[in-house]
C-alpha cells in the first residue's frame, strides 16, 4: 500500500511525472487550477500505486512525497 502526497500549489503542470509513471496512474487535472494558475498533477487510482517514486524522481519542483 503506497501513498502519494502532492504539494499541489507548487505544481507547474509540466507532466514529467505523468510520463514517468510505469502504471499510468497520474494525469494533469483538466478540471483544476492551482494558485499559480497551472493544471496540477493528480493520481487517478491511488490504490494501484506501488510507491516506486518514479514520478517524484522526475518532478523538477519536489512536490511529491511518497510513502510505502
Amino acid at each position, binding site marked *: 500500500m503506497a501513498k502519494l502526497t502532492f504539494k499541489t500549489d*507548487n505544481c*507547474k*503542470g*509540466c*507532466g*514529467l511525472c505523468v*510520463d*514517468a509513471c510505469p502504471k499510468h496512474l497520474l494525469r494533469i487535472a483538466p478540471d483544476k487550477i492551482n494558485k499559480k494558475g*497551472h493544471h496540477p498533477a493528480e493520481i487517478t487510482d491511488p490504490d494501484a500505486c506501488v*510507491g516506486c*517514486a*518514479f514520478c*517524484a*524522481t*522526475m*518532478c*523538477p*519542483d*519536489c512536490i*511529491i*512525497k*511518497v*510513502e*510505502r
Partner: protein
Amino acid sequence: MVVFDKPHALTDVPMHYCPGCTHGIVHRLVAEVIDELSIEGKTIGIAPVGCSVMAYNYFNCDMIEAAHGRAPAVATGVKRADPENHIVFTYQGDGDLASIGMAETVHAAARNENITIIFINNAIYGMTGGQMAPTSLPGQVTQTSPYGRDPKLCGYPIRVCEMLSELEGPEYLERVTVNNVKNVKNAKKAIKKAFQNQIDGKGFSLVEVISACPTNWGMTPQAALKWIDDKMIPYYPLGVYKDRSAKEAE
C-alpha cells in the same frame, strides 16, 4: 514509511524555473547528496549568473552569488580560506561556465582545485531569452542564430568534458543527463562522487548535466526530454571522461 520527500538541504522556497525545466531535478540531486553525506553545515554553494542565479534561495547551506563566469575563482577563494572545513560547490550554466567563464573553469581544473562543479548544459542562454550558447548545436535555431547555428560564422560547440580531460589537473569529469528515471539515478551517483572526491581531498570534480530548456527550445517538456536523446547525446556522449583515482587503482 516515507520513501521520497524534499531533501533537507533544499529550502521551501518555490523555484522560479519554467515548467519542465530540469534545473529543479539537478538542484534536488545536489541537495540529496548534501543530505546523504551530512555536509550541509560545512557546505558553501556558489550560484552563477543565468537561470540559476537565484539558486542561493533554494539551498539551505551558505550561499554566494558570483559574477558571470567567475564562480570557480570565487570557489577557489572560499575553499582556500579554510580547506579543512569548507565543502564548496559551484552550480553553473553553459554560458557562464563555457563562454564568459572559460578561463576560470580551465584554470581551476588545471590547478586541480579541490572543488565540485555542477555544470548545466542545455545548449542555450535561458535567462536572457534563448540566445546561442557555446554549446548550442550546429543548426540549432536560437534568438541570435535565427537561421540555425552556422559553424562557418560562429564556430562549433564546445565539449567541455572532452576538452578538460586533456588536462593533467582534474580528478574527475563525467557527463550525465536527467531525461529519464534511470539517467537521473546515474546523475545522482556522479554528483555524489564529485562531492565525495572533495571530502577525500582528491580535487577538481566536474559533472556536466545535459539538461532540458523546453521554453527556449520551443518544445513541450516531454519533447524536450526526447530531444536530449535524439540531438544532444549524439553530440555530447554520456560517460566518464576522467577518473584519475579509478585509473590509478587499475
